[in-house]
């Protein structure tokens, strides 16, 4: 039942504390779980259920809805090649084919060395920079086949530290200093306007 490391568990509690209802922390905690092990394990879902007060089935329901959560092991680098219109107009299909040849795998699978998982993906909000791709959700723009080969070489280099492994999303975390924090309150416990609104009302009347 203990999936999270002590450090992550502490973080998990901090995250839960930011929301008026703990269930809202479900997706952030799934990200945290994925950060810890690269993908989301059953143990992780179970513990998240306990942490946010839902059944494991509900965690699975939410987890499986979202593309980014992987419920089986994936490569160190997940390479998503955009295949939606703007990229398609400018050669996404060719790029994906090239990637399949270069990595020797079909989209949707992982190289045998466990380094790369290749996926055809949908629009990545970089349409003007087509064709584009993401490595662990970090963009690469206007990627030519040779750019792609170079990128793969760089990533395959064990000394490469620029792109963190799959699961690690933002490397800078939000931290709300205790002394500045207003604090989340369950909505059932509030039924008056915030002070600055009340104040002004009194001033008006």
């Amino acid at each position, binding site marked *: 039942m203990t999936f999270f490391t002590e450090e992550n568990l502490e973080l998990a509690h901090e995250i839960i504390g930011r929301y008026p209802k703990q269930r809202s922390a479900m997706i952030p905690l799934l990200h945290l779980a994925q950060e810890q092990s690269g993908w989301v394990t*059953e143990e992780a*879902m*179970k513990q998240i259920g306990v942490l946010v007060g*839902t*059944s*494991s*089935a*509900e*965690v*699975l*329901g939410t987890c*499986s*809805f*979202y593309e980014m959560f992987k419920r089986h092991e994936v490569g160190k680098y997940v390479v998503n090649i955009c295949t939606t219109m703007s990229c398609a107009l400018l050669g996404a299909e060719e790029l994906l084919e090239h990637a399949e040849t270069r990595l020797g795998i079909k989209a949707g699978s992982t190289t045998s060395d466990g380094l790369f998982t290749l996926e055809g993906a949908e629009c990545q909000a970089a349409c003007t920079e087509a064709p584009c791709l993401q490595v662990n959700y970090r963009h690469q723009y206007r990627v030519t086949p040779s750019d792609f080969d170079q990128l793969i070489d760089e990533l395959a280099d064990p000394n490469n530290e620029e792109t963190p492994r799959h699961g690690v999303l933002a490397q800078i975390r939000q931290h709300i200093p205790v002394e500045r924090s207003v604090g989340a309150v369950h909505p059932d416990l509030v039924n008056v306007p915030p002070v600055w609104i009340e104040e002004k009302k009194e001033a008006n009347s």
Partner: protein
Amino acid sequence: MPDSQPNAVSVTINGTQIEAEAGELVIAAADRNGVHIPRFCYHERMSSVGMCRMCLVEVDTGRGPMLQPSCMISVTDGMIVDTESDQTKRAQEGILEFLLINHPLDCPVCDKGGECPLQDQTVAYGPGESRFIEEKRHYEKPIPISDLVHLDRERCILCDRCTRFADEVAGDPLIQFTERGNETQVLTFPNEPFSSYFSGNTVQICPVGALTAAPYRFKARPWDLEQVESTCTTCSVGCRVAVQSSRNELVRYLGVDIDPVNHGWLCDKGRFDFEAIKSPNRLETPLIRDPNDKDQLIETTWGAALAASADAIKEARSGKIGVIGGSRLTNEDAYAWAKLAGSVIGTNNVDAQLGDGLPGKVVLGLPGATIDEACSADTVLVIGPDLKEELPILHLRLRGAAKKKKVKVVEITPLQTGVSSYAHRSIVCRSGEAAKTLKSLLTSDDELSQEIRSGSVVVILGRSSLAESALPAIEVASVITEELPKAKFLVALRRGNVRGAIDMGLSPGLLPGRVPLENPNDEIKKIWAKVPTVEGLDTAGMLRAAADGQLDVLILVGADPLVDFPDQDLANRGLRGAKFVVAIDNFPTLSVANADVVLPATAYGEKGGTTTNIEGRVSRLAQLVTSPSAARDDWMIASELAWRLGGDLKFSSMEEIWSEIEQVAPSHNGITLEKIWADETRDGILITETSIQLAIEPSGETPVVDGYGLRLISGRKLYDAGTQTSNCASLSALAQDAELRVNPTELERLGIQDGSEVTIISTKATGVAIAIADESIPRGTAVLPFNNPGIRANLFINSELPVTDIRIETR
């Protein structure tokens, strides 16, 4: 803007003007006016999700006709609805075409075939041909999602009914939509099955054959079924059911939606436990003690068995006869037995309860509340057994009301229950001391106390633990009458027709029709040969008397005191102490094995009549099949015994019994069988009248605690080693082995390993159980289920004390 009729709006549906209630959904308004709008996801007892889009109709609110899902939009004044326009029909046809493109169309092998909304609506509204030429979605064919339910995802149309039910109604969100879009599917979490007490409802509300009930799969085709509406008697909630049979065999129960009781839902025990009647263990012929081998029961004839019983009764000293049981009976059976005991045998030693309820006078004397009243009171105080385990549909109703914020549930309980999850406040008290806790709550300046006092209150009252005597519950009633004089009570008695049996006089001190022994009415004096005047013994009293040689004959009418009476030691001594024991039953129970004569009785579904639920609601019981064996109806057995005792009960049919009840029982005057059985009387008939005046004297006794002891708490589980459950193929495996649950700190203190065997020691017995550390159990207590496989709690309970304390030791 005050309006003359603020809640009424006028709507035109298919050209006809109707009155609807403001806020009512279009589909519901149409339903009420006999216009059927096809639908899959909409269910009147759950929130709308608008997923299937099958209910699209053309709606004009002044801006021209527009297709709108009728399960999502509310009526507004002047709205014009067309459920048959070309647009509507095209939409319906289109949606059905979409639903069918991935549907396997395996109707011939599908349980739902013949009663399938998808099938029916396809015939009525669907396209004639499929333009879909691709490969359909494929999934592994039926996968079990629990012991009782199978899921075929290929047939599923993702209407969200089962998942919504699990989450919204049952509170067991164990089935969920998973994946997304075209790959969406219903699933459970790996290794966490849909083990909800209410899982069978999902099968019933599934609009296709995606969910099937393991006990019913491939058993019958709908067109072969005969169906009668009846009442479930598994517990005393009395849910309305449609009982279906095929070739003289019960095959299925369906919940019927009635407002005051079950809203269409059933618990799985009620839904599936009819299997027991087909059990090969059923008693089929009368048995009698072998004169050559006193340890053996041998088959005999009805004549011989009845004669032996009558002889024993005749030989008994006057007044030294007792009748235990009655909750398995119909009202008619119960009346026949009450009459036999009172009018023929001349005793008031009758008790339908097995020392596990509250005195009959308390049950009938407290101001009564209905389930609906409980679900709409400002506060519901729950002080009694775990409703989820014992009265599951009452739990469901209460949960629904609490979730919709219609009631505030306050629970006073010795341990966490199924109610705790939706209680506004769960107050943990020491077992046996609820009255004290309640009193201090009500007299404190806690905000809650003010809230309770300022609104309407219904108390759901019963025995929180069978290791407590009835006293603590009676003390609660006395605190309530003192502090909250306007409060009403719903007495949480569990057994099937226990309330009806008490109404019929199977309770010491009472006569049929909620009449005290002291004030017999004229009718009974006219009709009964004699009317008892001396208050008889209750079950505990009879057992004690028998043990002391003060009772000669014990008649067990569907009663198994060795298993169900809280104090097995006393029950044992009672049965042995009696000179002669007659047992009338469906199954060879432990007590039956100790009887001198055993008479097989017909079971539920094999006999008709009426039954009464916890509220006092009388409703019909239907006969659907005939008993394959020599079993007889309980009232017939009473009649024959009377005759052999030189009396005459003077009725020869169930109908005649009822008309006598109607005359004799003042509370039931004017309530004819025709009325109860009428098709319009789906809700049954609620009887509130009572002539019992209750005077509760608080005992002021506080249980003494042994400093070293753990207080024993014992309640029943829905699935236990009870006769009915253990004779159902599908349910018997669901009863979990009995374990002793104790707070981990107690185990630590005693140096006991979690999961190890311990010796339980009480003043009554010593026994062995596995001890489990459980954080949720309050310190100082130990919890043992009353009757689960392994070890029974009634071994240890001393029914003479208000509470039972035990010691545990490592082995």
